[in-house]
């Protein structure tokens, strides 16, 4: 399964390249520590402008999920699982992702998962597994 690679833009490149060393990094406010995803140049909490990418544990829990049955992308063969994963570092820090290395019917809300990366072109796409 070859995923479409995301366009690497100045705003998001550090996120998509982070997995090169096996570590997930999230845009983080250097003033108050708030983590924001997708990356933006201002902290919505304290309006500080000093945002940089900081490592997170890569651990999360499944907030919601769905088994997609429909050919939405020419290169991705259904069925596959799309999920919202809430990272353990911060409530509301939720990534839309795929759950991999797990039978689609075994996925549950509340299941603990950890990050792994799928390398496509110049991007390391974060996906999660039990």
């Amino acid at each position, binding site marked *: 399964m070859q995923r479409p690679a995301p366009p690497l833009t100045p705003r998001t490149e550090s996120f998509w390249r982070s997995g090169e060393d096996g570590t997930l990094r999230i845009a983080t406010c250097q003033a108050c520590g708030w983590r924001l995803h997708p990356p933006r140049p201002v902290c919505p909490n304290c309006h500080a402008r000093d945002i940089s990418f900081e490592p997170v544990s890569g651990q999360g829990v499944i907030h919601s999920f*769905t088994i*997609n049955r*429909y050919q*939405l992308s020419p290169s991705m063969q259904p069925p*596959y699982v*799309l999920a919202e994963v809430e990272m353990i570092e911060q409530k509301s820090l939720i990534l839309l992702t*795929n759950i991999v290395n797990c039978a689609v019917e075994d996925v549950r*809300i509340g299941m603990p998962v950890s990050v792994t990366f799928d390398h496509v072109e110049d991007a390391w796409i974060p996906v999660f597994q039990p």
Partner: protein
Amino acid sequence: MIEQQAVISGTGISNVGRRLHQDPWSLTADAALAAIADAGLTPEHIDGLATYPGATGSTPGITGAGVEDVRAMLGLKTRWHTGGSELPGQLGSVINAILAVGSGLAEHVLCFRTVWESSAQDQLGGRSATLQSRAAREMNQWYEPYGAGYSTYGALSMQRYMHESGATRAQLGQIAVNARANAALNPLAVYKSPLSIEDYLDSRMISDPLCLYDCDVPVDGSVAFVISRADSKLIDRGRAITFEAIGSAAGLNACAAMMWSRTELKPSDVKLAELYDGFSILAVLWLEALGLVPKNKTGEFLQNGTRISRTGQLPLNTGGGQLSGGRLHGYGQLHQACLQLRGNGDTRQISPRPEVAVVSSGTTNFSSCLLLSRH
């Protein structure tokens, strides 16, 4: 409140259907001229135009006609207009018109929405071709690498709702079953054949737990309204629909709370709900956001479908909604509310004729709601 300075004086709708292959400007003219005539006006009286999402930066299917198309086609002399997509829901275009009329910029604003997605998909080679636009790429980078689509959003919302509330598919499926029953009585609805809860439960999964019948259907069609000054001498005040309150805040709960903060009316006064159902779960979320059903109780509320039927305590989506009536993008719901409030619902008219109705459009932060009455 400014919304009480404006009324809906006229409403019109074109033919609606799958792959009509009819000029979308022609569909727009059908709806617009019908709405203007319904208001007792002529095109010379129209001095404002409002639409969602406008022709600029949109796709051929999502926008069948823009402001300039309609102004030129109808020879209108406008003092104010707007057409854009960054609005509070599709009905944000109606709220824009209310603001223009309430502030005195215009006397009679023509609001219109023309969808042409069904034919555009045919002509351009599928859904994806109609969605290609540069502006979408920045956002799409979070979806495309994961193979996510619009159905993903509906499915994740539905799964989470079922987890938190304990609601079952057999309960939530009543949204689709009810819509189909109402569509059977709407000559313009696209899907009229009977649909049972068993049919629903047996249907093809699109993105579990979202099934085929949880998804609305793209159609071709146009709906128009005339928003007039409430004190206009030209309109028949007895037929006009009053805006009791509007909600434009981002997010369903904030949007509904804003609406209720602008009126003395209460959720218990609502006798008709025409709620956005791009996915059936969205109607569920709107029912709860609007306070029509307590949080996480919609599963029980929908049991057997009797409460939301035309003879129930809260009739829902009496024209078939977008699930069976067709995706007229919130404008369809508003049109049905006007028919019911005026008693023009024909064989699907609810009885007694409702005094107060609520209409909603959109989801997430793209949200608006309108509280309407005949007073």
